């Protein structure tokens, strides 16, 4: 016979509004084995917690049911409470009557009835709970950061400064990310390179940071505190240990590749560094552009290299890294707008994407900072189109959040660098942020024209060849606008990296439908993920600007530190085990386990589970035909009992 205590939370009116909480507590007290049942305004508050602790002692409770919010919210809190009161922390069941009852039900009768059914299920389940003991493991002290943009750089420096070892993995040949492509940053208009490059250098120089550029993650094993990550070092065909960064090779190279850094506006060499301040300042060979790789002849670079650093035979290699935590900061892409034919991107040379425009302003860019069209002429009229692919059910429903501000920045830079008339075609201007509204006002005063209406079409002018006509309705006057311009800048949707789903799979992160990584809780755990020990920062989570990205990076660094600053940590005890007496030796468990936790003991003819590898998914338990595998805390008996309880009322 168990002694169960039931504690029903009102959560203020959150629960009490659609569930009669006192009736629920009364109902609980009629259920077999329930020795005490109470309701209280806020169970998670200190008095609420004390109430539970006191009842455990007074009524000699051996099981506790908290009927409140989602277990994802407070299971941990209440586990601590009952543990402090002397119970094993697994003798707790949470009934989720807030997220899954009161908030989704309007009728109080229905709400109360559903809550009763759920509570009854919990009582059935609680009777069968068993105490479990947690495992204690050693924690690796290093942190891996995936992505060398501003988020990754910031997090790496923060962590390295605390004395922890950091592995910064970047798939390109330099760190810096998108921020390195920008000319100015809004709203302060300070030079992007001026604030970024010192940080890039600091990363290179830092004794605690191992910089791994031109690398990709190929395998992730292990779990929080004990990640075992295999990193693929892509072949650079240049031995960086020998290279002294004289860059003589890049001068002689005849191969031409597309400059990623300049958004394809110009070409670069096959052996190259992406941009002058790249870190590391050592070149790589782009196989797809290299004359030798394409035609089998050339090797000019090899000839000019005094260090004998060129190595055409180089192969991809694999490096194993052991860390305790991981920060994923893989950044974003801009949407390819060429499928949206009405805007003419890719068809009319006068249509630019936002990142292309960024490069036009940059003094290290293809035009050395002069704003000229592809034919070299200076534009007379420029239209900046907001929300291209963003806020659009046909493409991406989210607001990309930074476009309004960088479009204003573009307007300012166009005004500064040209004499052109500048038009903003917008739906709403979103300028929430420190100094943003002020920046908006400043741009208005700079005589930029704002037309409220989403552009319907960009067409070629029939009167003036080469010019473009932008068609939209000015929704404020209701007039149809046909505006002749020379240049159109699109603000495309900010979207996840093309490989974000793949990265998500490697690290076991959930993604939303487009591929942004899901945080554990949108408000209270925005940097944590469902995978313990793996954190996210920056635009891989959602579109955001540089200040927010940097803030997240610092936050993620602190989160990672809470793990790697410990020498040992406790793991959930909810693993699977085999009852050898019932095992029939079919080896189904061995065949299905994604972690290789069950192994077959041929001598005894039974399976055995290595609990250090087990993550507690329970797959083995469900494929076990003889029910020999016990998925702790989700045993067959417990689940069956809960189902029975749920179906009674």
């Amino acid at each position, binding site marked *: 016979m168990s002694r169960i205590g039931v504690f029903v939370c009102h959560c203020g009116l959150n629960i009490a509004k659609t569930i009669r909480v006192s009736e629920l507590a009364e109902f609980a007290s009629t259920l077999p084995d329930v020795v005490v049942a109470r309701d209280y305004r806020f169970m998670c508050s200190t008095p609420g917690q004390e109430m539970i602790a006191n009842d455990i002692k007074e009524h000699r409770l051996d099981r506790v049911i908290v009927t409140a919010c989602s277990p994802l919210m407070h299971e941990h809190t209440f586990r601590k409470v009952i543990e402090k009161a002397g119970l094993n922390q697994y003798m707790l069941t949470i009934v*989720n009557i807030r997220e899954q009852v009161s908030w*989704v039900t309007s009728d109080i009768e229905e709400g109360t009835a*559903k809550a009763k059914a759920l509570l009854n*299920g919990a009582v059935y389940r609680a009777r069968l709970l068993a105490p479990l003991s947690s495992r204690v493991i050693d924690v690796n002290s290093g942190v891996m950061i995936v992505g060398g943009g501003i988020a990754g750089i910031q997090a790496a420096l923060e962590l390295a400064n605390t004395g922890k070892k950091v592995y910064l993995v970047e798939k390109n040949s330099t760190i810096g990310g998108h921020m390195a492509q920008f000319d100015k940053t809004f709203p302060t208009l300070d030079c992007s390179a001026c604030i970024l490059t010192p940080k890039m250098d600091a990363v290179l120089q830092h004794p605690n940071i191992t910089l791994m550029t031109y690398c990709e993650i190929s395998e992730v094993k292990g779990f929080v505190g004990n990640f075992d990550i295999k990193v693929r070092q892509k072949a650079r065909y240049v031995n960086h240990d020998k290279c002294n960064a004289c860059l003589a090779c890049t001068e002689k190279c005849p191969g031409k590749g597309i400059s990623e850094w300049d958004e394809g506006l110009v070409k670069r060499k096959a052996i190259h560094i992406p941009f002058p301040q790249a870190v590391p300042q050592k070149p790589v060979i782009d196989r797809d552009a290299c004359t030798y790789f394409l035609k089998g002849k050339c090797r000019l670079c090899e000839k000019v290299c005094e260090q004998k650093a060129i190595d055409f035979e180089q192969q991809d290699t694999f490096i194993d890294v052991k860390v305790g935590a991981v920060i994923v900061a893989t950044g974003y892409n801009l949407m390819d707008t060429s499928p949206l034919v009405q805007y003419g991107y890719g068809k009319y040379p006068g249509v630019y994407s936002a990142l292309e425009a960024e490069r036009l302003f940059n003094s290290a860019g293809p035009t050395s900072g002069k704003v000229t069209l592809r034919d070299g002429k200076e534009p007379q009229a420029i239209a900046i189109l907001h929300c291209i692919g963003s806020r659009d059910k046909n493409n991406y429903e989210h607001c990309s959040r930074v476009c309004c501000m960088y479009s204003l920045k573009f307007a300012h830079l166009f005004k500064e660098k040209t004499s052109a008339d500048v038009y903003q075609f917008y739906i709403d201007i979103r300028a929430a942020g420190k100094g943003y509204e002020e920046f908006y006002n400043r741009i208005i005063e700079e005589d930029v024209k704002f037309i409220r209406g989403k552009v319907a079409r960009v067409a070629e002018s029939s009167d003036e060849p080469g010019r473009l006509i932008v068609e939209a309705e000015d929704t404020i006057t209701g007039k149809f606008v046909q505006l002749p311009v020379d240049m159109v800048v699109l603000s495309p949707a900010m979207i996840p990296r093309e490989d974000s789903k793949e990265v998500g799979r490697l690290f076991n992160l959930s993604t939303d439908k487009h591929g942004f990584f899901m945080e554990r809780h949108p408000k209270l755990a925005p940097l944590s993920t469902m995978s313990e020990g793996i954190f996210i920062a920056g635009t891989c989570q959602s579109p955001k600007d540089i200040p927010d990205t940097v803030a997240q990076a610092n936050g993620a660094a602190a989160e990672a530190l809470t793990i790697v600053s410990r020498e040992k940590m406790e793991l959930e005890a*909810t693993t699977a085990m085999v009852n050898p007496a019932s095992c029939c030796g079919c080896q189904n468990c061995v065949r299905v386990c994604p972690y290789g936790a069950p192994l077959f003991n041929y001598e005894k003819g039974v399976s055995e589970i290595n609990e250090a590898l087990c993550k507690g998914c*329970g*797959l083995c338990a469900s494929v076990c035909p003889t029910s020999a595998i016990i998925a702790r805390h989700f045993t067959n008996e417990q689940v069956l009992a809960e*189902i029975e309880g749920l*179906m009674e009322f």
Partner: protein
Amino acid sequence: MSFEPKILGIACNWCTYTGADLAGTTRLHYPPNVRVVRVMCSSRINPSFIFRAFQLGADGVLVGGCHPGDCHYNTGNLYARRRLAVTKKILEFAGLEPGRFRVEWISASEGNKFAEVVQEFTAQIKELGPQQKLKIDELQEKA
């Protein structure tokens, strides 16, 4: 009185249960008929759980897991997909209405999908009426 079905929901912790929480956080209302059991992964679901639920008087069973490829345990739901497909065929061949058992992939971000699925499934079960076939005889007498 109108027929209010009892529906068992079995949701994986990482996607569908979290998605169901999101439906709550965003205050999406849906019918109260689904009672959810939380398991760590849809692959934890033993087909006999489903048979048992029907015997205990469930009018419908709704299983929710991560989208294939998004499983927190990498491949759990890919096994689950096969196993539950077989479960469905077995129930169907035994003569149970196929509409009473449904598997949906609902991610943690799809609170609205959870609400929609529950809405739709509840309506469907209401249409089908009470499940009498697998229900234990003693329970039928009670009803």
